[in-house]
């Protein structure tokens, strides 16, 4: 495992040295500031009679938290793909990889070390964003939403999944093609989620099947939809339809499938990288 640790360490150091961490932290902080300010303003302006206000306010906080987490989920997905698309493809293209893989280190150690480095940084980033939001919701909204660990776990799994898929493409495509491929798949999953949702509303089995099919091709969005379901619990539907309220909930099997998908993508990335000419 020494090789894995050396590469993972280098990956984190590179992100810090090239100011990737600083930029991501700045964007995250700006988002948290904006979210806190918005939350404060929205709650301040809530209508309703005094007797109903507490319950209404609590429901509003739950939905607003889910909305915020939706933004965090997108931010995390974008950061995951953008920061990691170049790490394999770029080093192959520039030839940097040549002096590395000719050392007594196996190629799987190089790839897995890089993946682990990014996984660690993205985990900290998610903890920073979700933790910041939880504190804001507690302080400004006076309420702690339930099922937060489950939701964060699912969002984390989505980020790790996207990371593994980015690595798989990066092992055989250029940086740009990798980015386009992974974003394309993620958007497909996103649209599939909406098709499934509308199918549920319109009682169209075909549309729902299409949505499920999109989730099978790329299960990233279904993880978010499961997370949104966990976050909202009993208040589903109170605020109408949207990406923050889920009608057709992805099953636990879909979560398991996403886990298997992640492991398979990572294994294929290692296999492709280990066999290709550099």
């Amino acid at each position: 495992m020494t090789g894995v640790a050396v590469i993972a360490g280098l990956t984190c150091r590179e992100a810090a040295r090239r100011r990737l961490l600083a930029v991501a932290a700045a964007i995250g902080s700006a988002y948290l500031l904006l979210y806190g300010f918005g939350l404060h303003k929205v709650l301040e302006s809530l209508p309703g009679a005094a007797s109903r206000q507490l319950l209404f306010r609590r429901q509003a906080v739950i939905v607003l938290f889910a909305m915020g987490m939706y933004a965090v989920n997108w931010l995390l997905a974008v950061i995951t793909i953008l920061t990691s698309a170049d790490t394999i493809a770029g080093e192959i293209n520039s030839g940097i990889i040549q002096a590395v893989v000719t050392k007594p280190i196996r190629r799987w150690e190089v790839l897995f070390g890089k993946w682990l480095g990014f996984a660690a940084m993205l985990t900290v980033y998610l903890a920073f964003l979700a933790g910041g939001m939880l504190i804001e919701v507690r302080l400004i909204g006076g309420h702690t939403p339930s099922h937060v660990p489950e939701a964060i776990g699912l969002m984390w799994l989505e980020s790790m999944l996207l990371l593994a898929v980015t690595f798989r493409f990066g092992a055989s495509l250029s940086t740009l093609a990798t980015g386009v491929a992974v974003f394309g798949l993620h958007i497909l999953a996103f649209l599939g989620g909406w098709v499934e949702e509308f199918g549920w509303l319109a009682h169209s089995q075909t549309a729902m099947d299409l949505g499920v099919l999109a989730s099978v091709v790329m299960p990233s969005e279904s993880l978010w939809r499961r997370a949104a379901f966990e976050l909202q619990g009993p208040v589903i539907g109170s605020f109408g339809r949207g990406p923050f309220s889920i009608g057709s909930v992805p099953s636990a099997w879909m979560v398991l499938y996403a886990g298997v998908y992640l492991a398979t993508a990572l294994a294929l990335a290692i296999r492709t990288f280990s066999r290709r000419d550099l």
Partner: protein
Amino acid sequence: MQDSAIETANLRKTFGSKVAVRGLTLEVGRGEVFGFLGPNGAGKSTSVKMLLGLVTPTEGQALLLGRPLGDTGVRARVGFLPEHFRFHDWLTGEEFLDFHGRLYRMPAARRRRRVAELLALAGLADHGRKRLRDYSKGMLQRIGLAQALLNEPELIFLDEPTSGLDPAGRLLVRDIIRAERDRGAAVFLNSHLLSEVEVTCDRVAFIKHGEVLETCDLKTLGMEERSIEARVKNLRPEALAGLEQWAGSIRLEGESLTLEVRAEESVPEVVAYLVASGARVYSLHSRQASLEEMFLRIVGTEAGL
């Protein structure tokens, strides 16, 4: 064979229908400086990449320090300076060498010692804390060379090590190669600078279309090959053609005759032949053929791609 640093048999690489290396068979002894020469596109870099496990051969076998290709452990005993090398340029010189020392799994104390030694050897002692992106091309080449020597390797691959270097840098590379040979390391030198190869290598292989055309020992065989320059009149065309029995390359421009013969013993025979053929010889000078002349005779004059 136990004493070989490199041993290959019919190593072949094709990319689709394109044959990059047709069938490489060669042997490099331990402690030997081996030059790998050929025109551009002859398959030199692909050959080096196959030996280092960067590119998987389509066919054939090879042993590196007695171990089959792809053996990870043997790489701890090998050093490599890639062609058009690019490194993590956000690292400082010291950090860069330390990172590669870690990849070699060298203990911390040995890494510290080697990093300091090699920065000094490469003439970069004052630049260890500077980032690689602020290095000049020559400095990058030097630190790349230092990286290839970190683990005190038994076999070193240098792919165009003097490109980007000024004369002082070239001299440094030459000295380093000699020092490494004296330490017992084998050096596989891939260079298109024939003068460089001539002064550093013990043996050279001429490669074209991914095949070794000829291997020459520069200390013995090279001495034999002679280049003759003569001023001759009355040389009849049939007499000129008759020179082919001794010479591989014959050129007549006006009265000036140039030919390369394979052995020194051919020189008096050529003189006797010319005189017997009725030609009038005004001057004749024979000297040891340069590597460039050998290259042109063996590989030909057609430009590489």
